[in-house]
């Protein structure tokens, strides 16, 4: 009961306070990799906490055991105890529904997002096969279109796509920067990270923090790829390439938001060249992220692990071994020595 309350409160805290704080923080621009980990840990941890919280309502404390039969027996005993009075039964029922619903919803949405992405990519690849021509010198597929654009097709057979407009708009150094950016997306499998965050957002569309996590992971993936490109080319070359393509890019169907564009912000970041986080700060950040992710598991496993220490219901084998040890002089001969 306490574990369940703690887990649900933790999920609430992460979504209501953690996400806005992380969105306001300045450091993610200096450490995009850490920030991606933080957003995914936050979103995953919140969903996991709700599921585990539901589970903790059903089974208050189960002794952790590698023996599945024993674990199931413990579950049955706990359930019997719960059903002994009606309030407990209702609570356990609600917990079971919560745990199952969250788990099923996340699994379903993840599977659907991944399948939809794979289908869209396959269709797009087929289209590229018809209208694009491979350019072995660039290692990219070129399609004839006057508007400049560059993108990549992640997954199995990776491709970087450039329009003829993009090739005309960029000089050789800028072109190399664009290719490095797109290959960094493919190498880092950024589409999976973004899909993961997107699946959680799709599973719970009414939770703004999860939508924010999705947007931020997508934004930070671009920064990661920019940094990878800036490691191979001068930063200002990458900024120049972004500006050249961004200024000439066709307007998206959805229209532009007020204020600066996301791409403009990336150009400013490349020009300003923010100092990366110090090694100590990054290490501390990584530890915090790990703690963020580990808390729900500890909250469930903690009491159970503590219960394991109390040997109030010893395993038959352990009990007989203990009996042998007490009857024979310690260290002289074990139970298998035949004395």
């Amino acid at each position, binding site marked *: 009961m306490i574990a369940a309350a703690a887990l649900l409160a933790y999920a609430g805290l992460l979504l209501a306070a953690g996400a806005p704080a992380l969105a306001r923080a300045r450091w993610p621009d200096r450490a995009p990799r850490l920030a991606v980990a933080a957003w995914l840990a936050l979103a995953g941890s919140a969903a996991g906490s709700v599921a585990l919280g539901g589970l903790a309502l059903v089974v208050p404390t189960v002794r952790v055991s590698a023996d599945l039969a024993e674990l199931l027996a413990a579950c049955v005993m706990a359930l019997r105890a719960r059903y002994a009075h009606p309030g407990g039964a209702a609570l356990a029922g609600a917990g079971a529904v919560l745990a199952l619903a969250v788990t099923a919803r996340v699994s379903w949405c993840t599977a659907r997002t991944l399948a939809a992405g794979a289908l869209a990519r396959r269709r797009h690849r087929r289209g590229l096969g018809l209208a694009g021509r491979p350019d072995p010198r660039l290692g990219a597929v070129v399609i004839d279109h006057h508007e400049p654009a560059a993108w990549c097709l992640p997954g199995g057979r990776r491709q970087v796509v450039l329009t003829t407009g993009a090739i005309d708009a960029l000089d050789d150094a800028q072109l190399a920067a664009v290719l490095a950016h797109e290959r960094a997306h493919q190498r880092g499998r950024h589409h999976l990270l973004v899909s993961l965050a997107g699946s959680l957002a799709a599973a719970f569309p009414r939770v703004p923090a999860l939508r924010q996590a999705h947007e931020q992971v997508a934004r930070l993936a671009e920064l990661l790829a920019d940094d990878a490109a800036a490691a191979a080319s001068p930063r200002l070359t990458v900024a120049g390439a972004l500006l050249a393509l961004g200024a000439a890019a066709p307007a998206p169907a959805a229209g532009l938001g007020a204020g600066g564009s996301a791409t403009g912000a990336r*150009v400013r970041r490349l020009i300003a060249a923010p100092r990366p986080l110090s090694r100590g700060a990054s290490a501390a950040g990584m530890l915090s992220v790990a703690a963020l992710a580990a808390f729900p598991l500890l909250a469930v496993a903690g009491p159970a692990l503590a219960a394991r220490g109390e040997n109030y219901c010893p395993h038959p084998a352990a009990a007989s071994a203990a009996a042998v040890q007490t009857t024979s002089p310690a260290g002289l001969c074990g139970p298998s020595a035949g004395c």
Partner: protein
Amino acid sequence: MRSFGELEAAIMDRIWSAEGPLLVRQVHATLRPERAYNTVLTVVEILYRKGWLTREKDGRAYRYRATVTREDYAAGLMGEVLDASTDRAATLRTFAERIGPDEAGQLREALEQARRAGEQR
């Protein structure tokens, strides 16, 4: 040219590159490496049935023309990327999204200043 898709692509390329509508014989003659005429004929008919090609009678044969220009088709592919819904944004994302003219002007200035500062250093 190994797979069937590649032959489709090669045929579309010939037809898109041609000045006017082509006979299957003309498509066949320009394909490298050479393919069996019947294979080319079959694939052209498949493309016609799929709606990629339209044809007009010329004597006893047909002349084939693409229904959409290569540029229009490329625009369709770009549209898939640019108008991406959030779901699809996960897989296809353009390198640079649109920067408005005012912002682009400011950024050009900032970039120029940074370049000059870099040279002075």
